[in-house]
């Protein structure tokens, strides 16, 4: 199970340029919980509890590129 309670919230911000040193993951590499978070937050100004190992600064390729912000 990848859900862990870190007390942090994640947000996804659409990004145009992907830095060379970013860790980039495709939607299909994520587990079920992480995919759920991406579906819920992509394109929305909401936050969700941090899950799995989607961490601050990661980039996810879904219908757009999204930068993960974790606070």
């Amino acid at each position: 199970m990848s859900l862990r309670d870190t007390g942090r919230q994640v947000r996804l911000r659409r990004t145009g340029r992907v830095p060379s040193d970013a860790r980039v993951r495709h939607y299909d590499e994520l587990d079920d919980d992480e995919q759920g978070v991406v579906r819920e937050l992509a394109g929305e100004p909401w936050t969700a509890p941090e899950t799995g190992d989607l961490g601050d600064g990661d980039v996810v390729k879904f219908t757009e590129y999204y930068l993960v912000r974790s606070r």
Partner: protein
Amino acid sequence: MSDSYVIVGDGIAGASAAETLREEAPDAEITVLTDEGESLYNRILIKEYAKGKLPEAPISIHQEDWYDEHDVDLRLNTVVVDIDVENDAVHTHEGETFEYDSLLLAIGGTPQQLPVENADADGIHHFWTFQDARNIKESVEGAEKGVIVGAGLLGIDFAAICGAQDVEAKYLMRGDNWWRYALSEEGAEIMHEAMRERGVEPVFDSGVDRFEVDDDGHVEAAVDPNGERYECDFAGVAIGLNFNTELVEDTPLEIDDGIVVDEFMRTNVDNVYAAGDITSFNDLILGEQAKNGSWGSAKEQGTIAARNMVEYGSEAFEWVSSYSITHFDFPFLSFGHPTLGDDSVEATTAESEWRRVALKDGKVVGGVLIGDLSPQSAFKQLMREGRDVSDQKDRLMEPGFSVDDLAAPTEQ
């Protein structure tokens, strides 16, 4: 003496096996042999590189120092040409022999060429490796007109690459819609429209009869079986994979559209295992032999194979695979085995949202979701549970469907 493991293939299946073996057998000797010139990279992101959306660096997953740190002997550019299961050894093209206590074959597939005139001309591309992606990117950046062949999950990557690189393309399909084995015309039309918006025109009841080349041997047109000629300076061919079973043809290993393994990823030879795209595995969820061609499944099979190589029977592979398309402004996901089954139910659930679920003996075996992926977990759960939903199929089509919407299963 410690055990020695040899893994052929450093794709995601072979690499995840190496990682798991190192965790489970800290003292083992682990050797990974690959015919590619680079260590594990992200095969499902190379299309983004070819589209010009992603730099090279983030596509690498294991740098070569990963192998040193994990005490794994990695041999690049090493082609295994023979497996001697009687003497527990593999032989390479370069003349080396590697002996093993346990062997893993994670050798994947190779794209098929069209059996037509000039199919290997310059400018005609197949897509499997990072090197292919570099060649495609270079070729497509200098191209004006493209032709794409192969109406499936890899063909649409070529369509997206042409769209992203401003190449006006014709997508020649044999039937009357894209991925006709999994989608009806109604669902496929959403995909066709997305292609058209990117300058890629689907052409139905078509295909390629031959390619024409210029004086330098570079592709200049594709001619379809109806005699229509489509000019192009770039062509992408994705008509399917040949699984790399040639390597095991002269061995006692059982082959049937891949290397046959049980649910523990073991072949009919006790100390030989296989994982990833190459396997025809005992699918415990489907209840028959099956094949998967997706990243998540290959990774999981590598992990499971490694655990069973250390201790046979320790963990079975039980997994619902999925494969998404993220090129458009709506998502697409296929899960399980969408082309199988004896029944199906489909619906347009909202504008540009469509779904289809395939059933066998009343149970969900796979499906396709376009636009709204929210029920993906519910459908995967139904597959894992093997729930008979034959008398409530329509509920599967309700927006926001969840497993709780179904009537409780009755005691048999």
